């Protein structure tokens, strides 16, 4: 008897279950009731249309940052510069939204395009440095994050200050990715058309990776740089392209975050959606469809934790801790894989 189970999916599910168990243990250590905690955590993300909408709105930037990390990962690159790309994308979208005065459909297109361009520029720099000078993309990505952080920190208060010192003016209704029919459909939640944009991005990335020459080359570089080079694929060109596309995806994520989910940009905060994108990509096994599943699940944890901490004494950080544990278990998936293989072998032997 042969078992037909998708191992990647199984590994992901085991990592999630282990992460939830770790969270439960932690709640017990802190003297809380894990059953009640999880009940409110999931209820907070799912119990009515508004909360489901919020979960999806929370998942939208995560889909895009996860896709960004996953895409670069397929070319063998670690895009840790996602927070900076999100910031730059969000900042440019906000600036366009605050300053340009044209009809909503045109304005939204212009905003998303500038956000994509901004993120792409922030991604292309580490790409170029890697291709041209062999500078490790993790270090240059981190530097780019802090450069974006400080530029935002000074640019927003000096030119676009809102009612608080730490955030920009609210963008007008015409510049928001929230649209009336969608907001009404989900009983006034934060859901916005960024969700559809992110799903379009998922389809485009899936097509690029699986159905085009470009995708084939990108993956070839990821599998083995030297073999790809030998086969006549320009490694450097593909590294730059991959980082550019990855940056663009994160930039769009920034638009979805700051002009969709939120309606102003905060300074002094590195957007957590950036690093969470790494988590999403890993749990989603760096496949586009896996990214969507992982992003929705993390969006659920993120949007449910507020409700949980309001209804119980459990600190909301338990949500982030669970996500972090899941990533650790995904990182150590070698162990899980081995257990699954052993299990399959035993089943195969028993069923003979």
């Amino acid at each position: 008897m042969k078992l037909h189970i998708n191992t990647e999916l199984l590994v992901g599910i085991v990592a999630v279950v282990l992460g939830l168990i770790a969270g439960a243990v932690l709640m017990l250590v802190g003297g809380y009731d894990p059953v009640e905690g999880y009940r409110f955590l999931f209820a907070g993300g799912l119990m009515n249309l508004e909360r489901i909408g919020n979960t999806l709105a929370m998942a939208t930037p995560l889909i895009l940052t996860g896709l960004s990390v996953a895409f670069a990962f397929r070319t063998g690159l670690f895009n840790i510069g996602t927070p900076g790309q999100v910031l730059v994308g969000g900042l440019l979208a906000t600036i366009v939204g605050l300053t340009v005065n044209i009809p909503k459909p045109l304005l939204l297109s212009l905003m998303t395009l500038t956000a994509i361009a901004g993120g792409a520029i922030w991604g292309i720099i580490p790409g170029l440095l890697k291709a041209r000078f062999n500078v490790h993309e993790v270090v240059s990505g981190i530097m780019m994050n802090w450069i974006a952080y400080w530029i935002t920190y000074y640019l927003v208060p000096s030119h676009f200050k809102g009612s608080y010192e730490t955030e920009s003016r609210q963008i007008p209704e015409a510049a928001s990715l929230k649209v009336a029919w969608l907001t009404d459909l989900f009983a006034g939640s934060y859901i916005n058309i960024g969700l559809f944009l992110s799903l379009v991005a998922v389809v485009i990335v899936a097509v690029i990776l699986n159905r085009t020459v470009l995708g084939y080359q990108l993956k070839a570089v990821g599998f083995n740089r030297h073999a790809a080079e030998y086969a006549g694929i320009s490694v450097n060109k593909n590294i730059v392209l991959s980082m550019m596309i990855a940056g663009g995806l994160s930039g769009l994520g920034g638009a979805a975050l700051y002009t969709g989910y939120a309606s102003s940009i905060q300074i002094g905060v590195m957007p957590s959606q950036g690093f969470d994108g790494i988590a999403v990509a890993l749990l989603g096994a760096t496949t586009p469809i896996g990214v969507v599943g992982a992003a929705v699940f993390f969006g659920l944890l993120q949007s449910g934790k507020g409700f949980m901490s309001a209804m119980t004494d459990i600190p909301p950080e338990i949500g982030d801790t669970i996500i972090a544990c899941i990533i650790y278990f995904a990182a150590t998936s070698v162990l899980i894989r081995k257990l699954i293989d052993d299990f399959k072998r035993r089943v195969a032997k028993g069923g003979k």
Partner: protein
Amino acid sequence: MWQIIVHIFPYAIAFAMPLLITSLGGLFSERSGVVNIGLEGLMVVGAFASAASTVALYPSMGAGAVWVSLLVAMAIGALFSVLHAFASVSLNANQVISGTAINMIAGALTVFLARTFTGSGNIQLTQGAPRFDVPMLVDVPVLGPLFFHQTYGTTWLILLILALGTFVLYKTPFGLRLRACGEHPHAADAAGINVFRIRYAAVMISGALAGLGGATILVTYSGEFNGSVAGMGFLALAALIFGQWKPLGILGATFFFGFAATLANASQAEPSLQVIPEVILKIFPYVVTLLALVLFSKSTQAPRASGEPFEKGKR
């Protein structure tokens, strides 16, 4: 100009020290062949351990609690880094991913614990490490006011560890083996060195030193734990590369970062610096690092096997 330098020098040193010790931790880890981007998280863990133990011990021990808390921070940092060692040495997992997981766990878990035990996510220190003038030396012209005025005890401790670490790395059998594991683990293995054990030791040293780095931030200039060290761990990583994986190199790199960062903060108080926009001063260290990486790219001295899992049978 001299006045400005004398004025900001103590701050620059205070800022550089946690970077330096964390960077030294990273040096041990990377020279043994394990990339540790979890330094940021290990610093957070160290800061938390130090804050919690200072607050717990202060009533009974008084000022001595600060020093005990540094030891606690090192121990907890080393313990926490075992997570990274287990994933990247025992399981051959992707070291960057494991390090990222360490960062995420540290940030979330420490605030969760702080909130559980103190009610808020922050822990305030009643008293940090005291500052003092080094007797006699402070009267030396030029150098006195720069290096021996208003110093922290932790600064001297960290410089001592740097000297000790350099000695261990270059003058002892353990150091030689550690560097061999980072350059050519298979040759080291063939020579009878237990690569796994060396790499575990190196990662745990990096955890202890990063823990001390986080604790140093807490007891010197921050005075409050809030679940983050504001990217200092990543900066330490950059200093490690900037300093070309050498102890003296990272000393220079971290002093540079200390100065650059302090200059940006001091510009609010120093009228002569206000001609330069603050944003330029703030992004200056990062841009220079990028440029330095480009300049060094030709002659890079990275440990050859850094980031590569060691598989015994692989050739």
